[in-house]
């Protein structure tokens, strides 16, 4: 059970000897919007590379190297309506390096980089701020060189055209970032530190008592508990389509459907099995029919997001095959509604999903994420319970689930005149 360190400040400790490392995350969480998301992206870029105690990358890197190559990163996450600024660090368990206590050193290090940023006159230090802002803008540009990412982002902008927060990439909005000043960002950061909900999550060979005593020095204060709604129910909308041409060898077909089922709802497990059968596994109908049977793609898959009730399909294809592939995808959905799939494949999908869920218990990062998310949602489902729920899903449940899938947006990145 998580421990409340102050009002709105939670500590989740997962004691385990399974790993050679101890992993710790400190998350600052609040309801999101485009401005705040962009602020956080720029904060992540800035705070990952500088602080008052470690003003340059080299001084920061030297410190981490001396801690046996401890990792340190700052990034931004989004779960439905909530967004978080995450500081994370992983160290080697003392047992393997002998004598030293890296854990308390890491906890002090995180406190230093989070609470003592590189600041002059109540603004982030201007040279570092300017360089990191420029680096971030350059990075945003280069993201578009990854066409799979680009196509998915374009589809997101179509599907969420009335919800800018969801239409914005997790790397922020370039125009908004361009307008952020060193002073405004520092003010925002101070507010974030005092008003955001905090979740500290630690997995490894540690005890809660040790962590509580090490974190006492942080003097974390009570804060207002904010609107914790995570799920976003996007309203049904008209179908929107867009085709864009670029000089590429491979075209990208991305499709968004609404599937109004949400994380840990009664129907959630049915949607998981449906997605596994439709395109979420290498034994799925999309993989079998688009790739294996008709040789039309190297990748053809689907993904279900239970925080927004969205089903996404993606395939990399030849530009001349757009119609054929769209037809095959639509046929697979219809086939599922009619129960046109074997018991054997249904059982294989269920077994694959169970394997995937149980395998996550072997990932320190997954354990940390799940603990944080459980606290955010004020609910938890153990791997065993998850497996039980998945096993209860029937063929008929999956057929009915396919009927609730509604086509909402199609984006086609058409390869033209490459070579």
């Amino acid at each position, binding site marked *: 059970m998580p421990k409340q360190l102050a009002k709105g400040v939670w500590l989740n400790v997962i004691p385990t000897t399974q790993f050679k490392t101890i992993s710790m995350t400190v998350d600052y969480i609040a309801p999101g919007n485009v401005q705040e998301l962009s602020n956080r992206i720029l904060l992540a870029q800035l705070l990952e590379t500088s602080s008052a105690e470690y003003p340059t990358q*080299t001084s920061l890197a030297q410190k981490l190297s001396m801690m046996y190559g401890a990792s340190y990163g700052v990034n931004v996450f989004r779960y439905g309506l909530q967004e978080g600024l995450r500081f994370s660090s992983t160290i080697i368990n003392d047992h393997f390096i002998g004598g030293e206590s890296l854990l308390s050193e890491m906890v002090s290090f995180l406190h230093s980089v989070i609470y003592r940023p590189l600041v002059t006159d109540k603004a982030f230090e201007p040279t570092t701020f300017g360089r990191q802002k420029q680096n971030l803008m350059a990075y945003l540009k280069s993201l578009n060189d990854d066409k799979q990412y680009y196509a998915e982002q374009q589809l997101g902008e179509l599907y969420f055209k009335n919800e800018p927060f969801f239409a914005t990439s997790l790397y922020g909005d370039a125009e908004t970032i361009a307008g952020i000043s060193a002073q405004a960002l520092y003010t925002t950061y101070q507010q974030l530190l005092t008003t955001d909900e905090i979740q500290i999550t630690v997995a490894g060979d540690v005890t809660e008592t040790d962590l509580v005593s090490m974190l006492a020095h942080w003097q974390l204060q009570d804060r207002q508990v904010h609107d914790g709604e995570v799920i976003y129910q996007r309203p049904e909308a008209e179908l929107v389509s867009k085709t864009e041409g670029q000089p590429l060898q491979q075209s990208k077909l991305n499709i968004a459907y609404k599937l109004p089922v949400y994380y840990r709802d009664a129907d959630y497990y049915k949607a998981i099995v449906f997605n596994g059968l439709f395109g979420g596994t290498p034994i799925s109908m999309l993989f079998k029919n688009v790739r294996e049977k008709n040789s039309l793609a190297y990748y053809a898959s689907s993904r279900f997001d239970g925080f927004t009730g969205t089903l996404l399909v993606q395939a990399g294809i030849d530009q001349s095959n757009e119609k054929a592939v769209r037809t095959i995808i639509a046929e697979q959905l219809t086939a599922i509604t009619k129960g046109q799939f074997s018991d054997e494949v249904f*059982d294989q999908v269920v077994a694959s999903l169970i394997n995937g869920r149980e395998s996550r218990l072997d990932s320190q990062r997954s354990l940390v994420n799940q603990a944080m998310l459980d606290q955010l949602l004020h609910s938890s489902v153990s791997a065993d319970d998850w497996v039980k729920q998945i096993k209860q899903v029937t063929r008929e449940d999956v057929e009915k689930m396919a009927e609730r899938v509604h086509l909402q947006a199609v984006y086609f990145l058409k390869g033209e005149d490459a070579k």
Partner: protein
Amino acid sequence: MKQKHYSDLGETLYSETLDNGLRVYLLPKAGFHKTYAVMTTDYGSIDQSFVPLDGTEPVTQPAGIAHFLEHKMFEKADHDAFDTFAHFGGSSNAFTSYTHTSYLFSATHHLKENLETLLDFVQDPYFTAQTVNKEKGIIGQEIQMYEDDPNSRAYFGTIANLYPDQPLADDIAGTLASIDKIKAADLYLAHKTFYHPSNMSLFVVGRLEPTETLAWVKADQAAKQFAKPAPIKRILPSDTQQVIAHKKLLMPVERPKATIGIRGMDELPTGIDRLKYEDALSLGFTLLLGETAPDFLSLYDQGIIDDSFGYNIELQRGAHHVIMAGEAEDPQAFEDAIMDILHHATDKLASASDRFEAVQREAIGSTLSSFNSLEAIANQFDDRLYGDATLFDEVGVIKQLTMNDVIQTMTQFLSTAGISLQEIVSGH
């Protein structure tokens, strides 16, 4: 069954070479829920020319055949191996490199059944003209996907610049034209020659009981017939050791990319000394261009490199090189700056001894961390490259390295190395 305990890692590795030559490695990991198994043949994209098993005349096969074979192994006369794994909850995959092809699964249940599925599908080929032709469309899309990826083009372009007259110059997947020539008979021939158990290893890690697991593998292998093992005769074209110094590729990119390849022409030591060489090189480049290096900060502050900058030390059968890559507004300035640092490497290293302990600790920590991941352990394991030594010996090797070792190795590597710059700039 041999058993070796590594006290600094807290790991015990079990191994045995079976009668048919298959090398089996088993690493139980307490607390883990899944088991990961990978079966690897010492055969990759560069092994295009060879004398077939029980043949006398050399043959040359189309570029990309090892990767094509990897794709086609899954499909059988009446089923697909993916489905058999899935039946037992196993998740399966495969990958091909320049020198190896690996088949894997991970599973939280039915280890015996999944292991047998792995051994069966890798050792029992089934190809027809029809199934081979069908795969050409799928791999064609895979090739075209990578053709559109500037980072992939930069990497493979650099390797090709470093080894222009060697099969390393061909992309691992081949080209649309080369895979079009592949026939079922070619795949059978390659399989017969390179998939003999004596050219393969099996690594199983995670939730397992070593004695029981080995017994399953032994029983499976004892029930199968194999040809008598024979040494494999690979044929490589003569190597002029000339590198292509500079190439520029136009692509519709938003940001230019620069990649520098450094090809070692020096002869590598053998056994554990080779592991020591590799780790010394790794520490050397970290001291020169890692984030703790003053030159890193200087180039970063000048905007010549950014957070995308990184480098990789690669050592494989018959080749070793270092690849450095990043996005660079000015690829020429990137090249000039890196060349200048490499040119003064010995002096720069001589004055870096105060940072040696830090990079040494970092390397120890990074190796220890990799033992968290079943996939990382099994995929990185190579039991032929370093004689009797393996990655399990790496922490010990790094601990014993001195600044002097690093300077000597870096000097040996850089003094005869061939260097190439691959630029990717906007245009089409």
